[in-house]
C-alpha cells in the first residue's frame, strides 16, 4: 500500500478523534460548566406555582367597626385540563355552566380561552393566566348555583365551585370613605417588575389609599402549591405546598359615624353652594385631633362606590372616575386638591406681624383700597372699615391692613433690590407652620402646595423666562392684549424678583399661594394646640386577628413651640371673634360649642375647561372648643362661593355631630367621643362588630 494511503489514514483518524473531543468539550460545558444555569432553566420549564391568595386583613375604625374587609364570595371555575379532554372539548359543559350562571355560552367560552387562543377582537374577555389553573367564570355565584355544581359532578365535569375572599365595604354607618381606603386590584406587569415587592400574578394588592399605604401588612402571604407539569401542562406530581397566611388588620383613627357625618356635611355644603348659583365642582372636609394629629374623618367630594373596583371596572365607570364634567371623582381632594387659602391665611400673617413687632392691641386704618406702585389693591368688596384694632381686623377680615404691613416690610427688606439679612417675616411664619412641604400624612400622593417665596420666584422665572421674553410669538392670539403684553415684558425683565404685589398678595393668601386642605388642617391644629406640629396620621395600629399588636403608630411630633405664646393667645381670641362677631357670626349664632375659626373666600384667576372664569374657593378653617381645643375641622368647597355661607355652615354641621348638638344644645349622650378620642385599641372582630349609635 502506498505511503499516501497510510498517511491519509492517520489524517482521517486524527480528524475523527477530534470530532469526538469536540463533543466531549461541548458536553463538559453544558453539564459541568453551565450545568447550574440549565438546571434552573429546566426547573422553570417543569414547575408551575399555583397561587392561593391569602385573606386580606380588615380596615377598621377606632372602635373596631369594619370599613373594608374580605367577605366570602362564591367563584365557579372551569378546569381546562379536565374539560379539554371531553369528547366534545367541553362545549356541552360550558353551555350548562352558562345556563346555570345566566350568561351567554359564547362569553363563557371566550372567558376560558387563553389570550393566545382567541381572535384579537376578543382579547378583552380572554383569560390572562395559564391553562392549568381553574379559570373563574363568575365570582358572585349564589349558594344554590354552587350546590348544583357540587352535587351534579357528572353533569359538570371539570367545573369547581369554591368560596374565595372578595373585598367588601360594609358601610355600617353609611360612610363611603372611598378616598381614604383606596382600592385593591390585580397585580399588573409594572408591579411584577418591581423588584422591591414580591408579588404573584394571581394576588390582589392595594392600589391607592390605606390599601396601598399598608399593603404589606394587609395582604398577608399567599399559599403556593408548586406542581411539576409535562409538555402538555398536565400535572405529573405536586412538589411543595405552603398554606396562605391571612393579612393583619389595620386599626385607624377614623370613626365611621363621624366619617359619615363629615361626608354628609360636605355633600350638603356642595349642594348648597350649587343652589346659590355656584359651580361647586368639588370639596374636602377633614377632622383632626389637635393634640395627636389623629385623622378622625376625611372626606372628598365627589366620590364613588368603592365596590366598582372589585366587580371589575367597566369602561363607563372608568370614564366617570376621570370625567371633568363629574369633577374627577378619583381625585382625593384633601391631599391632592390645591387651593389659594385667602383670608384663612391671615392667622399666619398675624404671627408674621407679631415677629415684626406690630402691636396687636393698636389700631390700624382699614381703607377701601391701598395704592401700591401703579396698582390699587382693594379691600374685600371695596368697603372701608375705618380705624380698627387687629382683633377686629381679623374678625371682619380686613385686607387693606395687611397690604400696608406687607408692603412696609417688603420695602424694609430692600424692595426690588433685596438687602442681605432679609427678615421675610411672612415667608418665615409660613415655613414655621410647616408649609412649603407635605405634611407626611400616611396616605399616598400628597401634594405639597405652593409657598411662593423668593426661591420659588427664581426657579419659576428660570422655567418660564423664554415664554415671557418671546410672549408675542409664543402666546395665543387671544392673549395678546396690551395689559398681558406689558405684564410679560415686566416678567421678562425682572420676573425673578419678589415684587411689592407678590408680597402684598401673599399676606392675604392670594397670588401664587396654594395649600392643600390637609395642610390647612395642620395649620389650625398648630394654632389650637399652641405650637406643636403633629404628623397627620390615619392609621392607629396593625393587629393580628387574635388581638396581638404588630405595630402601633403613636403620635409623631414634627416640631414643637413653633408659635410664640403671645400670638397663640391673640389668635385664639381673634379667631373666636370671627365666630362671635365677625364674618362667621351669623352662621354660628346660638351654636352651643365654642368654635374659633376663619372664613376664606379665595379668588381663582384660572379658567374652567369650558373657558368660563373659575368661581371663588370657599374655606372655613377652625378648631374647638376654644378653651382646651380638641378638634380642628376644615372644609373647602372649590368654586363654592362665600366661605361663611357655604363652608362654615358645613363645618358647623360636623361640630354638631361631633359634640352631639341637638336643638341648639349639647346632648352628652349623642357625643361621638364622650370620653375623648379613644386611646385604647379596640377589639377587632370585623365579622361580629356592632355599631353603637351616638
Amino acid at each position, binding site marked *: *500500500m502506498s505511503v499516501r494511503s497510510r498517511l491519509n489514514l492517520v489524517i482521517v*483518524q486524527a480528524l475523527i478523534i477530534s470530532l469526538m473531543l469536540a463533543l*466531549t468539550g*461541548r458536553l463538559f460545558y*453544558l453539564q*459541568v460548566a453551565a450545568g447550574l444555569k440549565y438546571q434552573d432553566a429546566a426547573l422553570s420549564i417543569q414547575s408551575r406555582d399555583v397561587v392561593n391568595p391569602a385573606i386580606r386583613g380588615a380596615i377598621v375604625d377606632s372602635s373596631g367597626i369594619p370599613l373594608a374587609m374580605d367577605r366570602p364570595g362564591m367563584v365557579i371555575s372551569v378546569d381546562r385540563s379536565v374539560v379539554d379532554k371531553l369528547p366534545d372539548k367541553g362545549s356541552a359543559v360550558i353551555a350548562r355552566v352558562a345556563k346555570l350562571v345566566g350568561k351567554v355560552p359564547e362569553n363563557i367560552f371566550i372567558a376560558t380561552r387563553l389570550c393566545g387562543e382567541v381572535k384579537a377582537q376578543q382579547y378583552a374577555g380572554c383569560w390572562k393566566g395559564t391553562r392549568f389553573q381553574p379559570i373563574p367564570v363568575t365570582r358572585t355565584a349564589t349558594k344554590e348555583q354552587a350546590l348544583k355544581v357540587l352535587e351534579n359532578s357528572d353533569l359538570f365535569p371539570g367545573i369547581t365551585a369554591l368560596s374565595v375572599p372578595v373585598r367588601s365595604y360594609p358601610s355600617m354607618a353609611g360612610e363611603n370613605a372611598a378616598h381614604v381606603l383606596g382600592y385593591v386590584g390585580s397585580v399588573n406587569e409594572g408591579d411584577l417588575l418591581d423588584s422591591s415587592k414580591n408579588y404573584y400574578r394571581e394576588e390582589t394588592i392595594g392600589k391607592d389609599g390605606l390599601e396601598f399605604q399598608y399593603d404589606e401588612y394587609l395582604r398577608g402571604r399567599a399559599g403556593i402549591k408548586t406542581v411539576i407539569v*409535562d409538555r402538555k401542562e398536565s400535572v405529573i406530581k405536586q412538589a411543595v405546598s405552603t398554606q396562605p397566611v391571612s393579612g393583619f388588620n389595620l386599626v385607624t383613627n377614623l370613626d365611621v359615624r363621624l366619617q359619615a357625618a363629615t361626608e354628609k356635611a360636605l355633600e350638603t355644603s356642595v349642594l348648597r353652594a350649587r343652589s346659590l348659583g355656584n359651580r361647586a365642582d368639588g370639596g374636602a372636609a377633614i377632622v383632626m385631633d389637635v393634640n395627636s394629629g389623629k385623622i378622625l374623618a376625611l372626606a372628598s367630594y365627589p366620590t364613588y362606590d368603592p365596590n366598582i373596583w372589585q366587580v371589575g371596572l367597566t369602561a363607563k365607570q372608568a370614564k366617570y372616575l376621570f370625567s371633568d364634567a363629574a369633577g374627577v371623582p378619583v381625585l382625593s381632594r384633601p391631599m391632592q386638591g390645591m387651593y389659594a387659602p385667602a383670608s384663612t391665611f391671615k392667622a399666619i400673617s398675624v404671627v408674621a406681624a407679631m415677629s415684626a413687632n406690630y402691636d396687636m392691641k393698636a389700631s390700624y386704618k382699614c381703607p377701601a383700597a391701598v395704592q401700591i406702585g401703579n396698582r390699587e389693591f382693594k379691600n374685600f368688596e371695596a368697603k372701608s372699615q375705618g380705624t380698627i384694632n387687629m382683633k377686629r381686623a381679623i374678625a371682619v377680615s380686613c385686607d387693606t391692613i395687611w397690604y400696608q404691613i406687607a408692603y412696609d416690610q417688603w420695602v424694609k427688606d430692600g424692595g426690588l433690590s433685596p438687602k442681605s439679612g432679609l427678615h421675610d417675616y411672612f415667608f418665615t411664619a409660613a415655613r414655621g407652620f410647616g408649609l412649603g412641604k407635605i405634611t407626611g400624612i400616611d396616605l399616598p400622593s400628597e401634594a405639597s402646595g405652593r409657598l411662593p417665596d423668593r426661591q420659588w420666584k427664581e426657579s419659576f422665572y428660570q422655567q418660564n423666562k423664554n415664554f415671557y421674553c418671546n410672549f408675542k410669538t409664543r402666546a395665543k392670539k387671544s392673549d395678546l392684549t396690551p395689559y398681558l403684553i406689558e405684564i410679560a415684558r415686566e416678567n421678562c425683565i425682572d420676573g425673578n424678583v419678589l415684587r411689592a404685589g407678590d408680597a402684598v398678595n401673599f399676606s392675604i393668601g392670594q397670588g401664587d399661594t396654594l395649600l392643600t386642605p390637609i395642610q390647612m388642617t395642620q395649620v389650625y391644629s398648630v394654632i389650637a394646640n399652641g405650637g406643636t406640629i403633629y404628623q397627620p396620621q390615619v392609621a392607629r395600629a396593625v393587629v393580628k386577628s387574635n388581638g396581638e399588636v404588630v405595630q402601633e403608630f403613636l403620635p409623631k411630633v414634627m416640631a414643637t413651640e413653633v408659635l410664640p405664646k403671645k400670638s397663640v393667645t391673640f389668635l385664639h381670641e381673634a379667631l373666636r371673634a370671627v365666630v362671635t362677631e365677625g364674618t362667621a357670626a351669623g352662621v354660628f349664632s346660638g351654636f352651643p360649642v365654642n368654635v374659633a375659626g376663619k372664613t376664606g373666600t379665595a379668588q381663582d384667576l384660572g379658567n374652567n375647561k369650558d373657558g368660563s372664569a373659575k368661581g371663588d374657593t370657599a374655606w372655613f378653617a377652625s378648631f374647638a372648643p376654644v378653651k382646651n381645643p380638641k378638634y380642628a375641622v376644615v372644609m373647602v368647597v372649590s368654586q363654592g362661593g362665600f366661605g361663611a355661607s357655604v363652608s362654615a355652615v358645613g363645618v358647623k354641621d360636623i361640630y354638631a355631630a361631633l359634640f352631639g348638638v341637638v336643638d341648639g344644645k349639647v346632648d352628652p349622650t349623642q357625643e361621638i367621643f364622650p370620653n375623648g378620642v379613644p386611646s385604647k385599641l379596640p377589639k377587632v372582630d370585623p365579622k361580629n362588630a356592632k355599631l353603637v349609635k351616638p
Partner: protein
Amino acid sequence: MSIYSQRKRRDRFRENFGQFDRMLTFSVGALLIIGTLLVYAATRNWFAAQDLDPQYYLKRHVVNILIGGLLAYLTTLIDYRLLRAYTPIVWGLAVLGLIIVLIPGLGSKINGSKAWISFPGGFQIQPAELAKIAIIVGISMILAEKRDKDANPTDQDVLKALAIAAVPIALILVQPDLGTVVIISAAILAIIGTSGAPTRWVVGLLILAVIGGFVAVQTGVVDKYQVARLQSFVDPTADPQATGYQLRQSRITIGSGGIIGKGLFNGPQTNGRFVPEQQTDFIFTVAGEELGFLGSGFILLCFTLFFLRAFAIARRTNDLFGRLVCVGVIAWFAFQTFENIGMTMGLVPMTGVPLPFISYGGSSMFANLIGLGLIQNVHLRTR
C-alpha cells in the same frame, strides 16, 4: 447428548465468537445495553400515561437488536473479499428501495422526508441505511481492484467510484435527507483519501461539497423545513415554537443533568416529554439528563474506543479493500454520531439522523450491526 458433542459445540462457539475483536464487541455491547435502557426510559412514562404497554418500545428495540445481531453474525461468516460478489445486488436493492420511497402511495413522509417504505403492521424500512453499506462496499471495491500492491487509484477509478455513489446520493437528496447525504459524503471522502487517490480529488470534492451546500440553500433545492432548521441553529429564537423550541429544550435537558444526572428513569424533562423524538433522534438528551456527564461521557468514550480499535484493524490489514471498508464504516459511524450528538447539544444544525447503536429504529440498527460485522470480518481475515 454426549459429553463429546457438547465440547465440540463449545469449541465451535469459541472458534466463531472468540476470535472477534473483544474491544469492538464490548464497546458496541455497552452502547446497546445503555441504548436499550434509554429507549425504555424515554418511552415508559409516555406509554403508561396513555394506558398502553410501557414496554412496547423496549420489546421492539430488543427484537431489533437480536435481528441486527444475527445479521452481523451472518456478515462475518463469509470472507469479506467474497462479499464483492453480492455488492451489485445490495446496491441494486438499495437503489430500488430509494426509488420506491419516492413513489406516492408507497413511500411515507415522516418529518418532511420521504425516507420510509411502510409495510402492513406498522413495520417500516429505510432504504437509505442499506444504501450506506452498498456505497461503502461498492466504491471500496472499485478503488481497491486490479492493482499492484503499491499503485494508487487513477482518476478513472475515482470517477467510476463517484458514479456508483452518485445514483443513490441523488435519490436521497430528492427525499430530501441532507443529514444522510452528509454522512455518505464523509464516508466517500475518507475512502477516497485513504485509497491513495490523487490529493486533488479530496480537495476538489471538499470544495464541491461546500459550494454545493451553499447553492442548494440559495436556490431552494433544499426544502423550506431544512432552511428553517438551519436558521434556528443560527438564531434559536427565530422559530421558537417548532425547531428552535426543540433545540433549546434539548440543550436545557442535557445541561440540567449536571455531573451525575437525575438518575435513570428519573429525568423530569424526559418524563414530561419536553423534547420531541426523544427515543430516536434526540435520545442523547435522555442520557444527558438521567445519566449526567459521567454517563453520557461514558457513551462518548465507548464510541471513541470503538473508532480507535477499528482504525487499528484498518491499519493492520494488508488488503486495501478491507482497509477501505473499515475506514468507510468508521467515517459513517463517526459522522453520524457527531451529527446526532452535536445537534442535541447545539453544536451543528438539526438533521434527522439516529445515534448509532443507541436510537430506537430497526433499519438503522440492522445497518449499524452489519457495519460492525464488516469490521469484524476484516479483523477475522487479517492474519
